């Protein structure tokens, strides 16, 4: 089925049906107990479709943690021997990812799904997952998706895109997988009429217009300008008050740096999130550290996101979600840093 209208009160039934069909369902819930649950709705596993909220800008932690968990076992040890940790088997359904977060997943796909070395842990979740994105009706002041090639009703990374029309949600299939789910659950939906399609168009236009008001300018040739600016003395000034706290990288939907550590007692080799903002990230055993000060580390973050990833995978690895701007304890603002360096 290509599209349909779902009463908001039936959303739980749709998700419960997906769960009965064998999927683990993730959606933003209020007052959860896992990481991030203290700052408004957070993605958590949902049982029988209960507890999903729809009133949110963007959860503090993006959907990246569902596919690339903060902590996961890569291997198990048995004495001196190492065996593969079990790969996740259950297909997932993720509801409520904003178009920026869904698009970010396609960037992570390029890193973890690289032809040369495919990451089985990420791909086991990702390939079997169905993502229902939630289009944005009220972009925030720090939302910048359109400045970086995204859009508030963008379908990249979603199998179905949902629009909040007030009493009802309009679901639109974006992939065959999405079409299939809508078809399976067609009985929950009613057909969308011209009025609803008009409303949907209005939402997108209004959101695009709002985003246009604070579009970042001067980003043409950003990569070239950044590449030329590596030794620019401005970096020191722009990064002077950075605390190296790492909040920006952990909240960022496209940041994927990780650490691998062995937990001897548990007999596990673990992968956990890491950050280029930490001094230890690049510290050699000899004591030499190529990025010994925070200017170098913040420069790495900006260069990686806006230049190196363009070279490696053709994409600026920023989807404009604005989390880094809101989360920074010292209000370091990526918009200002880019503007300062792109000015030259």
């Amino acid at each position, binding site marked *: 089925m290509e599209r349909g209208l779902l009463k908001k009160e039936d959303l739980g039934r749709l998700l419960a049906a997906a769960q009965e069909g064998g999927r683990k369902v993730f959606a933003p819930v209020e007052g959860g107990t*896992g*990481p991030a649950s203290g*700052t408004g709705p957070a993605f958590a596993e949902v049982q029988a479709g209960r507890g999903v909220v729809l009133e949110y800008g963007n959860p*503090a932690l993006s959907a990246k943690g569902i596919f690339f968990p*903060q902590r996961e076992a890569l291997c198990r040890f048995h004495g001196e021997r190492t065996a593969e940790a079990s790969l996740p088997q259950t297909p997932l359904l993720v509801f409520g990812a904003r178009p920026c977060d869904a698009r970010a997943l396609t960037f992570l796909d390029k890193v973890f799904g690289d032809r040369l070395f495919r990451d089985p842990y990420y791909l086991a979740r990702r390939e079997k997952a169905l993502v229902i994105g939630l289009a944005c009706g009220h972009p*925030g002041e720090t939302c910048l998706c359109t400045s970086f090639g995204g859009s508030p009703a963008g379908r990249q990374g979603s199998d179905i895109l949902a629009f909040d029309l007030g009493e009802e949600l309009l679901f639109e299939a974006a992939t065959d997988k999405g079409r299939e789910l809508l078809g399976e659950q067609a009985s929950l939906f009613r057909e969308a009429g011209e009025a609803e399609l008009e409303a949907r168009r209005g939402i997108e236009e209004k959101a695009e217009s709002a985003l246009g008001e604070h579009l970042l300018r001067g980003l043409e040739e950003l990569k070239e300008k950044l590449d030329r600016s590596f030794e620019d003395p401005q970096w020191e000034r722009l990064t002077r*008050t950075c605390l190296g*706290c790492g909040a920006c990288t952990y909240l960022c939907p496209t940041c994927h740096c990780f650490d691998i550590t062995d937990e001897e007692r548990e007999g596990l080799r*673990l992968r956990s999130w*890491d950050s280029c903002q930490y001094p230890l990230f690049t510290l050699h055993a000899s004591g030499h550290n190529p990025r010994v000060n925070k200017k170098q580390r913040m420069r790495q973050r900006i260069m990686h996101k806006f230049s190196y990833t363009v070279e490696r995978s053709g994409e600026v690895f920023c989807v404009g979600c604005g989390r880094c701007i809101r989360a920074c304890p010292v209000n370091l603002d990526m918009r200002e840093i880019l503007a300062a360096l792109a000015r030259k």
Partner: protein
Amino acid sequence: MNDVSRRIREKARELFATGRIDAFLGYEPGSLPLRARPCLIQAGDEDRERRVGGLVWDSFCANNLAVFLPKLFEQDPGARGKAQAPKPRLGMVVKGCDLRSVTALVREKQAPRGNLLLIGVPCAGMVDTGAVEERLAGDEVLSASEGEGGKLLVRARDGRELTLFREEVLQACCRECRFPGPEAVDLLIEGPSRKPAEGVYERIRAFEARTAEERWEAFRREIGKCIRCGACRQACPTCYCKECFAEQTDPRWIGAGTELSDAMIFHLVRIFHQAGRCVECDACLRACPMGVDLRTFRGKIVKEVEELFHYLPGFSLEEAPPLSTFKEGDGEGFITEP
């Protein structure tokens, strides 16, 4: 611009002009509403004049500026044995809590007092951005400014204009602040300041009165939100260890991920390391992207130290902190009868 801001700018200008400082640490307006942010100006900055002219003091200056001191004054390990570069002379705006952190750092030899020119500012408390957002019932703050009579004029994105009172949306640490007035500074700018709060351990006592199961559940739930980013540690002025215990590999105290026991030990140990040093500025709470309620658990340690040792940190450069002082007559019962 208020009078205090003007006087800060004048002083900074004068200190740079007379060559008395190499750097100035204050606040400038942030890029988000309800935020001012740390501003570190070096004498050699080519836009120094403009930046000095942008220094502010208002109800959004929540950051504890003392956090920058250890890095500014650290020894250069590469210059061991050879002459160290001269330490910078720093002019610095300090509110009550910041000054206590500065004092604690000076006492721990992280910054030489002689290199600091401390400008005390009157503090009426800082606005809690979360509390303002709550009053907007989920809508976003477009802009905010301070008005006369303790008013906060807030414009929401949906066009609503609200007038709030600062007192209603202050940070918890400011409402409960017992020492709003910075003393022992080099220059004190006068102005309206909070009155010290009383009965501040009520909240902790209320928590203590709950059952063990309730307390454990609360602790478990809060720490369960932690994503191990370390922002709390980085924002804390008195967390400055070059190698944090959490990162040691030999011995390995805790793992790196969000396993609950790892996260719990991290926070417990960090709180204990702050015993006798934490000034309850809530920098950790504000830095936490996940809203973990660090304040309650940390407050317990502060209360314990005050009750057991009659000691609160950051008031005296001479007084030896109780947890790093050993007296002959100290009891040893905790060793023999734990």
